[in-house]
């Protein structure tokens, strides 16, 4: 549906590029997790898709049509639910929806019924006449979602949609976004919360310093990232443990223990045998696939939330 090819962009006043040769695709019916620390280029990328930034080099197409042409003909095919509360706080929920509905092709009874549908989908019926600035954080996020859905977009961009919401609203939003993908939308979801992305994304693209570090199906990426063994031993033996395990894979110090990335699960028995042979007594052992956060750290050597 959406294809981005070699997209590069540099702000006029910046010394370094915000995006360099970025390429990926987003497909109908799936959620694409777009990950990266602050300054990775996510906002710049979303600004391009929203039509807020001119393209400098590269291509963006929607169903093989240039993005600019699609936006000129039918800008409402793409909708953004930005991180900010992008609505008018002094207007009621219904007035906000009516205001944004009136900016597209909706009118008359179609407009009314679509507003009603969006109110139902985002579970805001009871709050239709409440001024937006009196809504809780979670309800504000739902209103943001409802506005984004008004024009039945085919591509939905969610930029940190769960910031500052309670667990119930977060669960509702994630479920709703998953539902939208199942209904046939292409969804791009950016977040700092790894567990959210792991929960709803089918594929991920990890950006850092304006470049795509890795992309693919989430489960395949996690499987391919190797097996992690986190190990701590009694006594002040971390340094000896690090030296002992280094022939088995990449070892990094982690708190009182170490983290070892194993190329194969089969090495596990050999590692434990080596620890026993060295007369070290394990105090903590954790073994399994890397999670997204660990994958990201192994790629960039810094945390996603830095």
């Amino acid at each position, binding site marked *: 549906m959406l294809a981005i090819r070699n997209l590069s962009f540099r702000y006029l006043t910046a010394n370094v590029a915000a995006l360099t040769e970025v390429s990926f695709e987003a497909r109908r019916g799936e959620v694409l997790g777009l990950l990266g620390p602050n300054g990775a280029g996510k906002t710049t990328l979303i600004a391009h898709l929203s*039509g*807020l930034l001119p393209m400098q080099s590269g291509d963006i197409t929607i169903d093989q049509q240039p993005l600019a042409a699609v936006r000129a003909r039918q800008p409402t095919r793409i909708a953004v639910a930005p991180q900010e509360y992008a609505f008018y706080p002094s207007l009621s929920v219904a007035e906000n929806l009516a205001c944004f509905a009136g900016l597209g092709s909706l009118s008359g009874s179609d407009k009314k019924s679509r507003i009603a549908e969006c109110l139902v989908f985002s579970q805001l019926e009871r709050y239709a006449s409440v001024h937006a600035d009196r809504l809780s954080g979670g309800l504000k996020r739902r209103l943001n979602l409802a506005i984004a859905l008004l024009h039945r977009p085919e591509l939905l961009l969610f930029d940190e949609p769960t910031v500052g919401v309670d667990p119930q609203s977060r669960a509702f939003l994630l479920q709703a976004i998953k539902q939208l993908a199942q209904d046939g939308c292409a969804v791009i979801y950016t977040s700092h919360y790894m567990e959210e992305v792991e929960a709803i994304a089918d594929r991920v693209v990890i950006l850092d310093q304006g470049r795509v570090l890795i992309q693919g199906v989430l489960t395949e990426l996690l499987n391919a990232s190797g097996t992690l063994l986190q190990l701590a031993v009694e006594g002040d033996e971390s340094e000896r443990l690090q030296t002992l395990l280094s022939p088995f894979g990449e070892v990094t110090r982690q708190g009182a223990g170490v983290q070892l990335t194993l190329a194969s699960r089969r090495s596990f028995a050999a590692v434990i045998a080596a620890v026993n042979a060295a007369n070290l007594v394990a105090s903590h052992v954790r073994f399994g696939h890397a999670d997204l956060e660990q994958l990201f750290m192994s790629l960039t050597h810094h945390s996603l939330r830095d």
Partner: protein
Amino acid sequence: MLLALMKKELLALSRDIHGMGALFIMPMVFIIVMSMALKDVYTPATKSLAYAVVNQDQGKTADKLIERWAVEAGAAQSLPEQWQDEVRSGRLKYVLLVEAGFSKVMDDLASKGEAKARLITEPGLDNSVFATNRMRLLAIAAQLRVEGLLAKLPRKFNTSALSGDAPVTAERMSVGPRPTAVQQNVPAWLVFGMFFVVASIAGLFVEERACGALSRLRSLGAKPWQLIVSKIVPYLGVNGVQAALMLAVGVWLMPEIGGEGLSLQGVHWGALLLMLLAISLAAVSLALAVACLVSTHAQASTLGPILNVLMAALGGVMVPLFVMPAVMQKIATYSPMNWGLEGLLNVLLRNGDVASVLPQVGRLAGFSTLMLLTAFMLFRRRI
């Protein structure tokens, strides 16, 4: 798209209670308060000033002087016992003190007496009223002296002509209504109120930008020119309502509360509408430029009113131009509010037609163009 954007703008404005207050209530209050406060500056009520007479002379000439004084100044109040304290405190505006021997001095040129008729006023009496009264007293004394001299001549003259209308006159060259506090204050505070859209537009615009709604509008396909025009048109309407309301206050409300009414007799309506449109466009354009310049709501709510007050102070809105020194009058010609005010005064005081306001309309149109270009360039960079 444009209609939906305009509707949204009006809806947002209608919810901005403080903004509405600043746009409609504030200029109305200013018109009422300032017109009442400055009433006497334009029409000094010398007849209504409380005064008393101390006649220590009791001669015929002194009596004549007091009698003629009363013709212009109205009847004197009875003299309080401690009249000096009353004058000092301002409860009595002045006392006409005729010293003993005044009649003798007036009637006899050879007399060496130094008795005088003295005008003793309260400390805070307006300078122009003080000078007017002093000159009036001099004129009456001069008349009395000439009459006394003529009476002594062998040939008899008709001296009654001296105390009647002198063969001199002073009148304003005007085809329109007489300049009054209302006639000056309605256009002045109307211009001020119209320019107050700066704070309102800038505040709403910054809020719209900060909350991301503006980006959302752009992503929905709204073009920069549509967003700018959608803000101009509703506020032209707001300015129109302001103008109608302020003129109504001047025409109907002011006479009801003891002020003078605004006269629209002989006003050229085409010229008035053209001036109002030019002022409105200048105000909205400045508002958009400021809105695109500032980054935060705090900056918008500070810069807007500061600009307004500065332009008003320099432009003759707060202090009428004619009481300013020459250098300030020169500076005033650089304030867009002054262009608007001068144009409106042209129409409301001098019954000026379209041709007579074209210089002001031209300046305001140039200013609007400059501000709109600035706003457009900044807008594209901001989004």
